[in-house]
C-alpha cells in the first residue's frame, strides 16, 4: 500500500468526480480519465498480476501499450475478455477486472512454487525435458504442456458486441498523435493533401503532456491544443483518437484499430472498427519506448520505467511510492527525479551508471537537493511482494560487494529510449544502429517500398531516433513536407516550430547492471517480464550454441506473447550480442510483425458474423421450400432442399417417399441453381467444340446434347446439357457449383487464348428459375397447365421448345437426370414461385410432390449417372467413368485432349467406374476402400478401388453404390472386401452401374 493519489496533479483525470469499479472482487474507486492501472495504483495497490512461468507477483512497469505485466481479465459472462492491458484500459463505471495467472489470490499464489524451482526451469526447459521417451509425447507431455500454456482463460460465451470495417483512401496517413504526428499533419495538410491522423490513446500530444516543454514560446500542452484546433478546421484532415496504426502492409495498405465502445458498452454502435486504409504515403510518428535496466530484482512490484512514473504522476495524479529511487544511464531519468521532488515525493537518490553523471538536468536535480550516485548501479532490489530498498554498488564491478542499502518503496529506471520502429519495419523498412544514442533507428536509405518502387513510409520525430523536442518537431516538419511533395502538393507551412531543447550528456549503454555481474545476479535480472526470461537464460542459449536472434527468441521465449518484447527486445539482443562477443547490429533484431499490439478477433471479422457471416444464395422458390419442410443442404453457397420432411417422418423416410413418388407418379424439383451460360457468335460452335469433349457445332437448333468439360490437364471438370438455340447461339447448362467458374473458364480462354474468335458469353444463371417435372405422369401435369404441346413427336427426348405454360413464357427442355420422363422448365426468375405453385396445383390429382437433392442423387445413381464431385475429384478422366461415348473422335483438339493422351492417362491399370451391390442389406460407406492383397510400405493394406456414391435404393429395396475399381469393367461378378471403420467387413459384388431400366424405356416415354 505505497502508491497513492497526489492532490493537484493529473492532467487527464477529473478528480472532482468518482468512478466505481471492481478489481479482484474489491470495490474500488478512481476518477474519470483514469486507466485501470492508474486507478488501481491510485487506490494503493501495486501488484496487478502474476508472471506466466514462475507466477512471481508483478505490478505495472509501464503506463502504455508496451506493458508486459498488468494483464487482466476484463468483464464477465459474454463480455469476458482475457489478456487486457490495465495500462490501456480506460476506466468506466462498473468496470470489472480480475488479475491473471494466480490462484487462489494475487498475494498468495500456489503456482508461485515454480519460482522456487526457477533453477530447474531454465531456458529451453520444455525442449529438454519433454523429449524422451517418444511414447510420452501424445498422452503425457502434450496434455501437460497444453495445460501450462496460454495466458488467461478463453471466453466461452458468444460476444454480444458488434464490429465493423471501414475502407478509407487518403494521400497521407500519420500514425501517432504526439507532437511529431501533429506537426507532420500540420505541415503535410497545408498543401491540400488528404491527411488522416491516428492516435492510439485517448489523448493528443504524446510525451509532452507529461514532460512539458515549450514550443513556439507556448507551454507544449497549449501548442498541442492550438494545433488540434487548427487541424480540426481543415476540411482535408481526418483525425481519430483511440485508433491505433496496427499494421503497414504492401502497396500502402494499413490497418487502423479503433476502439469505440470499450468504456461505454451500453451505447449502441460497433465496439471496434478496423480501418482498411490505402495511403500513398505513411508517416510513422510512433514515438519511442523507454527501456528497463537489467538488475537483480528488477521485476519486483514497484520497479517501473522512469517515464511511466512521470506519467502516473503528471497525467493521473498518482505517486507510485513514498520514497522513489531513480536509476538511470542517461539524462532523461532525471526528469522523473525532478518531477517527483517537485510534487513533494521523497527521492532518496539518483543512481547514475555514468562515472561523470549527466548534464543540465542532473544539475537541476542536485540543486533541488537530490543526491546523485555517479558510476553506481543497483546491485539488487530488496523485497518480495513490494520494494523495500535497493543495495547499491559500483556499476563497473561484479556486484560482489554492496556498498550500502537505501530504503525506498519504488524504483524508477531509465535504460534509454528505443524508437518505435515496428510500423516502419512491418513492410520491410530496414534499421540502422545508432551507437551514440544506443538505439536502432529507421535507415532512410532502405525504406519499405510500394507499387512504384519508391519508399512510402517516412519516420518522424522520436520514431526516427530524434529524442530532443526541437529535433523532434523539425524532423516531423520535414517528413510532412516530403510526404506532401510525394503526393504532388507543396506544403504551405514553411517554418519549423521553435522549441528549446535541454542539452543532454551522452548515454552510457547498460545491458547488465552492474556491468560485470555474476550468474547469481544475472539469474535474477529480468529481460522479459511476461515470459520470465532473465539475462542468464539468454546467456545460456548462447552458450548452448544459439546464434540467431530469431532462434534464441523461440528457445528462450524472449519477446513472445502479447507484448512481443516491446520492452525486452533490445536488451535481450544486446545480452545475446555480449554473450556471442559481437556488435549489436551484427545480431540484429527479430522481425517486427503486425499488429503493433493485439487487436480483437471481432475487429478482424468485422461485420461478417451471424446472418451475414457468409452469403447464402437463395433460389426464387426459397421461401416456398422453407415453409414446406425443407431440410436444407448447403451446396456451395446455395441452400437447396435435401428433402421435404413431413410430420412424423425421418429425413430418410422423406427421401424414400420422394424417390418412390417420382418413379411411380410425378415429382417436382427446384433446379434453378444449375448454371445457364449463353454463348453466341459466328465462332461459338468452334469455341464450344474446344470447351467440350463432345462435338457441339453439329448440334441442330432445337436439340440438346449432354456434354463433358475437362480441364487442360484432362480431368473431368463439369458436365451438363447444351441446347442449341439458333444458328449462332448455344445455351450451356453447368452443374450448380460450376456456373461461375465455368463461365470464368470460358471467358479466360476467349480473352487470353482465342481473343480473335467472335464469341460473346453471358452468365444467365440467375435470370431464370428452372423447374424439373419428373416421372411417368409429368406430361399429364404439364398439359393440364395448358399452352403447349408436349407429346413425344412435338418434343422428343433431348430437345427443347419455347412456349407458354399457365400463361407464363417458358422454355421447356426434355432432358432427364432420373431415367424418367422429365421436363425442365425455365421461366423468368420473378415468375418462378408462381409457376411452381401452378404446377403443384395442376399436379395435385397426380399426387405430385416436391423432391430434394438426396432423392435426385438416388434417382441418378439408380440409373448409373455420374455426379461431378462424387464420381470426380480432380483426378478422374471421362474415360475412367466409361464416358468414352461423349468424347468426340472427330475433333483435332479440345481442352484436355492432349493430356488424355499422356501415358498415365491411357494406362489400362486406372481405376474405372462400376456398380457395387452390397451383401446382406448393407449400404456401403461413402469413400470406403476395397482392399487388395498385401501391404504397402507404410504397413497399410493395399487397395484396389473405392466407393464414390452409395445410397439405399427405395426402387430396388437395397443398398446400391458406384465406385472406381482397378480394371473394374472386366471384373463383373467379382466380390470385393470393404473393411468398415466400425470393425466389420462389408462385401459387395461388382455389377453394371445401371441398376434400373437398363433399356431406357421409361426415359423415352
Amino acid at each position, binding site marked *: 500500500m505505497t502508491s497513492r493519489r497526489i492532490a493537484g496533479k493529473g492532467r487527464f483525470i477529473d478528480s472532482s468526480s468518482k468512478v466505481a469499479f471492481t478489481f479482484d472482487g474489491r470495490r474500488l474507486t478512481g476518477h474519470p480519465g483514469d486507466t485501470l492501472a492508474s486507478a488501481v495504483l491510485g487506490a494503493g495497490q501495486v501488484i496487478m498480476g502474476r508472471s506466466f512461468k514462475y507466477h512471481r507477483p508483478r505490478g505495472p512497469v509501464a503506463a502504455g501499450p508496451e506493458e508486459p505485466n498488468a494483464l487482466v481479465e476484463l468483464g464477465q459472462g459474454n463480455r469476458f475478455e482475457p489478456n487486457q492491458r490495465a495500462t490501456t484500459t480506460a476506466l468506466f463505471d462498473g468496470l470489472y477486472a480480475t488479475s491473471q495467472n494466480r490462484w487462489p489470490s494475487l498475494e498468495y499464489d500456489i503456482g508461485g512454487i515454480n519460482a522456487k524451482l526457477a533453477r530447474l526451469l531454465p531456458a529451453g526447459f520444455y525442449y529438454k525435458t519433454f523429449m524422451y521417451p517418444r511414447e510420452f509425447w501424445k498422452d503425457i507431455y502434450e496434455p501437460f504442456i497444453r495445460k501450462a500454456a496460454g495466458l488467461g482463460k478463453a471466453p466461452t460465451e458468444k460476444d454480444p458486441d458488434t464490429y465493423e470495417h471501414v475502407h478509407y483512401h487518403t494521400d497521407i496517413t500519420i500514425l501517432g498523435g504526439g507532437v511529431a504526428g501533429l506537426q507532420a499533419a500540420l505541415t503535410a495538410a497545408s498543401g491540400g493533401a488528404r491527411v488522416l491522423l491516428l492516435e492510439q490513446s485517448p489523448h493528443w500530444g504524446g510525451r509532452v503532456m507529461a514532460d512539458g516543454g515549450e514550443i513556439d514560446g507556448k507551454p507544449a500542452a497549449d501548442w498541442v491544443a492550438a494545433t488540434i484546433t487548427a487541424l480540426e478546421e481543415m476540411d482535408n484532415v481526418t483525425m481519430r483518437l483511440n485508433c491505433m496504426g496496427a499494421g503497414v*502492409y*504492401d*502497396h*500502402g*495498405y494499413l490497418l487502423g484499430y479503433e476502439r469505440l465502445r470499450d468504456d461505454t458498452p451500453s451505447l449502441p454502435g460497433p465496439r471496434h472498427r478496423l480501418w482498411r486504409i*490505402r495511403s500513398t504515403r505513411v508517416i510513422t510518428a510512433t514515438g519511442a519506448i523507454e527501456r528497463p535496466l537489467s538488475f537483480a530484482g528488477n521485476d519486483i512490484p514497484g520497479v517501473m520505467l522512469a517515464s511511466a512514473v512521470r506519467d502516473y504522476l503528471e497525467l493521473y495524479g498518482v505517486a507510485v511510492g513514498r520514497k522513489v529511487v531513480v536509476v538511470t544511464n542517461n539524462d532523461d531519468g532525471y526528469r522523473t527525479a525532478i518531477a517527483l521532488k517537485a510534487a513533494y515525493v521523497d527521492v532518496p537518490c539518483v543512481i547514475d551508471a555514468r562515472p561523470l553523471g549527466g548534464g543540465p538536468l542532473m544539475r537541476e536535480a542536485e540543486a533541488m537537493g537530490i543526491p546523485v550516485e555517479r558510476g553506481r548501479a543497483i546491485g539488487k532490489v530488496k523485497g518480495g511482494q513490494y520494494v523495500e530498498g535497493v543495495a547499491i554498488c559500483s556499476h563497473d564491478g561484479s556486484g560482489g560487494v554492496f556498498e550500502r542499502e537505501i530504503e525506498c518503496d519504488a524504483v524508477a529506471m531509465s535504460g534509454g529510449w528505443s524508437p518505435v520502429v515496428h510500423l516502419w519495419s512491418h513492410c*520491410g523498412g530496414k534499421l540502422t544502429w545508432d551507437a551514440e544514442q544506443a538505439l536502432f533507428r529507421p535507415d532512410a536509405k532502405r525504406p519499405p*517500398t*510500394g*507499387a*512504384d*518502387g519508391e519508399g512510402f513510409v517516412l519516420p518522424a520525430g522520436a520514431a526516427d531516433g530524434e529524442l530532443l523536442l526541437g529535433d523532434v518537431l523539425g524532423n516531423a516538419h520535414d517528413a510532412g513536407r516530403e510526404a506532401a511533395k510525394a503526393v504532388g502538393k507543396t506544403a504551405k507551412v514553411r517554418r519549423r516550430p521553435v522549441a528549446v531543447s535541454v542539452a543532454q550528456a551522452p548515454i552510457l549503454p547498460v545491458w547488465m547492471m552492474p556491468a560485470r555481474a555474476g550468474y547469481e545476479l544475472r539469474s535474477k535480472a529480468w529481460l522479459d517480464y511476461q515470459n520470465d526470461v532473465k539475462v542468464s537464460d539468454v546467456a545460456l542459449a548462447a552458450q548452448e550454441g544459439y546464434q540467431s536472434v530469431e532462434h534464441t527468441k523461440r528457445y528462450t521465449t524472449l519477446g513472445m506473447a502479447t507484448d512481443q518484447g516491446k520492452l525486452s527486445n533490445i536488451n535481450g539482443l544486446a545480452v545475446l550480442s555480449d554473450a556471442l562477443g559481437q556488435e549489436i547490429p551484427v545480431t540484429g533484431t527479430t522481425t517486427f510483425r503486425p499488429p503493433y499490439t493485439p487487436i480483437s478477433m471481432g475487429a478482424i471479422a468485422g461485420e461478417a458474423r451471424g446472418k451475414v457471416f457468409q452469403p447464402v444464395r437463395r433460389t426464387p422458390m426459397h421461401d416456398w421450400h422453407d415453409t414446406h419442410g425443407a431440410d436444407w443442404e448447403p451446396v456451395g453457397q446455395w441452400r437447396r432442399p435435401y428433402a421435404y420432411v413431413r410430420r412424423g417422418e425421418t429425413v430418410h423416410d422423406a427421401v424414400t417417399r420422394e424417390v418412390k413418388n417420382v418413379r411411380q407418379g410425378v415429382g417436382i424439383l427446384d433446379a434453378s441453381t444449375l448454371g445457364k451460360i449463353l454463348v453466341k457468335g459466328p465462332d461459338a460452335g468452334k469455341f464450344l467444340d474446344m470447351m467440350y469433349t463432345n462435338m457441339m457445332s453439329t448440334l441442330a437448333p432445337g436439340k440438346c446434347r449432354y456434354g463433358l468439360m475437362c480441364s*487442360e*490437364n484432362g480431368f473431368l471438370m463439369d458436365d451438363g446439357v447444351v441446347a442449341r438455340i439458333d444458328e449462332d447461339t448455344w445455351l450451356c447448362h453447368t452443374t450448380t457449383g460450376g456456373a461461375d467458374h465455368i463461365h*470464368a473458364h470460358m*471467358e*479466360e480462354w476467349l*480473352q*487470353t*487464348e482465342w*481473343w480473335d474468335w467472335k464469341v460473346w458469353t453471358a452468365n444467365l444463371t440467375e435470370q431464370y428459375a428452372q423447374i424439373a417435372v419428373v416421372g411417368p405422369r409429368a406430361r399429364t401435369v404439364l398439359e393440364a397447365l395448358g399452352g403447349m404441346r408436349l407429346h413425344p413427336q412435338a418434343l422428343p427426348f433431348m430437345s427443347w421448345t419455347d412456349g407458354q405454360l399457365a400463361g407464363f413464357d417458358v422454355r421447356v427442355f426434355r432432358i432427364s437426370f432420373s431415367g424418367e420422363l422429365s421436363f425442365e422448365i425455365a421461366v423468368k426468375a420473378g415468375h418462378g414461385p408462381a409457376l411452381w405453385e401452378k404446377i403443384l396445383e395442376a399436379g395435385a390429382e397426380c399426387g405430385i410432390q416436391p423432391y430434394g437433392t438426396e432423392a435426385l442423387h438416388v434417382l441418378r445413381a439408380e440409373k448409373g449417372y455420374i455426379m461431378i464431385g462424387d464420381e470426380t475429384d480432380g483426378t478422374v478422366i471421362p474415360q475412367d467413368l466409361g464416358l468414352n461415348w461423349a468424347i468426340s473422335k472427330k475433333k*483435332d*483438339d479440345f481442352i484436355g*485432349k*492432349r*493430356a488424355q*493422351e*499422356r501415358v498415365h492417362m491411357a494406362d489400362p491399370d486406372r481405376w474405372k467406374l462400376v456398380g457395387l451391390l452390397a451383401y446382406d442389406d448393407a449400404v456401403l460407406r461413402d469413400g470406403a476402400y476395397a482392399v487388395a492383397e498385401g501391404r504397402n510400405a507404410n504397413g497399410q493394406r493395399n487397395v484396389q478401388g473405392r466407393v464414390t456414391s452409395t445410397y439405399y435404393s427405395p426402387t430396388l429395396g437395397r443398398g446400391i453404390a458406384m465406385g472406381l475399381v482397378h480394371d473394374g469393367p472386366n471384373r463383373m461378378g467379382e466380390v470385393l472386401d470393404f473393411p468398415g471403420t466400425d470393425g466389420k467387413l462389408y462385401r459387395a459384388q461388382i455389377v453394371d452401374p445401371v441398376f434400373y431400366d437398363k433399356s431406357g424405356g421409361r426415359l423415352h416415354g
Partner: protein
Amino acid sequence: MLTFRCPVCGVDAEETELSPGGEAHLKRYGPGSSDEDFSGYLFQRENPRGVHFERWRHAYGCGKWFHAARCTQTLEVFGTYPAQTTEPPQEILDTITKKRPGWTWRELGAK
C-alpha cells in the same frame, strides 16, 4: 495486399477485387505436341525472386484478364497490360531494364 491498375478499365483495383491466374505468356501445346513441350506448358513454371510476368483477372470489376509485370521480392509493379498479346510490350521491357539492369525471365531480358 497488392493493388494493380487494370489496363482495361483504368481502375486501381486491390487484391480482393482480383483473382490471380499464374504465369503469363505460356504457349499452348495441344494434340500432336511432344511430351516435353506439353509438360513444359502444363507443369513447368517460373518461380523467380525478382522480375515476373503474371496473369490477373479484374474479377470483381470489368471481368477482364490482364497481364502484370512485377518484382516478386519488392512487389514493385513495372506495369500492367492487356491479355491479348503473346509478349510484354517494349515499353514495359524498357521500364524493367531501367529499374533492374541485367534482369532475365525465360528468354526475355539481358542476353
